[in-house]
């Protein structure tokens, strides 16, 4: 009675390749939906499906830590933020401005060209890794950098990569402050066609906020 999943014999049937191709297929299809669907809200949902499949692929590529992180950061934070942005700007019931795409063929042509280029480089290059791994593995660090377990990632992250780790926190702090500064109301309301230019002295009283058409 296989009471725990990971003792189940994997190699009798290449289930992980099958799973990988399923995840990849769903991901690419939902990626296409993101790009072609008319309503931006549906595009958001398709994007989230794509992120979840990407998390699945990370898990299959032997790195569950990255999969959980992806779920947490992308699906939890970025997708929710994008959906919030969609909700703030997309008026569901009002006549939608035409979201037709401009020169779709130019874009299609450019991306197909790029894909051809990438496909050529990927399939023609021979990645000879056999010799490579142990030549660098002899580096001084005590961590066995070949096994992708969470403890190793943690150790590697903080010993040789400590400086970038701190730098990332500085970047995120800067983003925090910048986003808040952008969301605040500017002191003088912009002279925008159509809305009465407000007296710069007191834009705050609710009666004539520029937003009220």
């Amino acid at each position, binding site marked *: 009675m296989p009471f725990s999943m990971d003792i189940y014999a994997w190699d009798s049937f290449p289930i992980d390749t099958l799973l990988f191709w399923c995840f990849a297929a769903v991901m690419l299809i939902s990626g296409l939906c993101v790009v072609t669907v008319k309503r931006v809200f549906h595009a958001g949902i398709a994007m989230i499906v794509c992120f979840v499949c990407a998390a699945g692929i990370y898990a299959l590529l032997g790195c*569950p830590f990255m999969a959980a*992180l992806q779920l947490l950061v992308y*699906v939890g934070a970025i997708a929710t933020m994008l959906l919030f942005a969609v909700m703030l700007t997309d008026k569901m019931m009002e006549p939608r401005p035409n979201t037709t795409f401009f020169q779709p063929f130019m874009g299609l042509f450019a991306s197909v060209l790029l894909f051809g280029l990438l496909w050529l480089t990927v399939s023609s290059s021979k990645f000879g890794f056999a010799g490579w791994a142990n030549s660098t593995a002899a580096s001084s660090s005590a961590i066995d950098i070949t096994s992708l377990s969470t403890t190793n990632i943690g150790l590697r992250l903080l010993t040789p990569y400590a400086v970038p780790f701190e730098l990332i926190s500085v970047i995120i702090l800067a983003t925090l402050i910048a986003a808040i500064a952008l969301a605040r109301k500017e002191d003088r309301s912009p002279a925008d066609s159509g809305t009465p230019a407000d007296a710069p002295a007191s834009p705050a009283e609710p009666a004539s906020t520029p937003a009220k058409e």
Partner: protein
Amino acid sequence: MLIALIAIYAAVSVNALFLIWLERKISGRIQRRQGPMLCGPKMMAQKSMWLGGWFATACDATKLIFKEDIIPSKVDRLGFILAPIVVMLAAIAVYVPIPWSATSYHQTEQVTFAFADLNVGLLYIVAVPSLTVFSILTAGWSSNNKYSMLGGFRSVVQMLSYEIPMVFALMGPIILAGSLSLGDIVKAQTQGLFGIPFLGWFIIPSVIGAAVYFICAIAESNRPPFDMPESEQELGTGFNTEYSGMRFAMFYLAEFSNAFVVSSIFTAVFLGGWSIPGITPPPELNLGFCILPYFDLLVGLVVFSIKAYSVLLILMWIRWTFVRVRPDHLMNFGWKFLLPLSIANVIVCTVIAAVQQIYYGGLS
């Protein structure tokens, strides 16, 4: 592989049904009435209040299944249909890493009996609710009425702002156990603290973490006193106002299975999962006429469910005695009170883990 998936789904829904019945009985007991007594075998109902009416939730479920699913016309169909499915998915997906019990029968060393004991267990448990956040947002927005939109926004704000203290609160036991996987955390709790075998449970070193996690867990699963999003009095069941029939049942079952998941994580991480302090049950028990294999598995399962259900009872008890919190108090409480508290807990746990490491040769 497939059998395990079906097993999870069946276990979760049956468990959720039982929980709804239990909740109504407990609320009845607290309010000095009897709770559902009618749909169930009559003679059992006469015997005692606790046996009566245990068909109630089954009848509710069948009623909800056959009730007509109305999809209002002006609704964003994709979001409306997708939301309950994703909520149910997330509610079930969280059950995977929970360590029900462990056995060393036929094994060299103790193996945790879980659906899949991931080595990123706790991080996975924190990641999956972000799917529920997304689906509540879509449910609120796509049902296109002011009340459900307000309810959806409120619940997303509440869940996001209570996720951070929860992660910090769970950081304590991770540091003490030195690993993310729940099975290892429970194993670490079987050894004692500072050499005393009986203080093993992580609720003792990280008491603050346990309290903060418990509060955040109530907020995360939208249960009173934090049930701002679907407070009937103000928003008319918030984001699931437009839902009816089977879709509403999905939201309802998801909420109850969330409650059970939260209490079982609390037991696994803070109350020492399947471990009884000081006693390790033998792998097999010879009953004279036959050998009962996997005996420690059964004992672990019983101990775990006792602890989980007791935590669940506390959850239900809190539900029926507290008044709802106002949104701005909710936010102040979450950011200004719980967050610093949970960070303090991380510091305390690191100190204890360091002392443990230096003087007593490490936990796990």
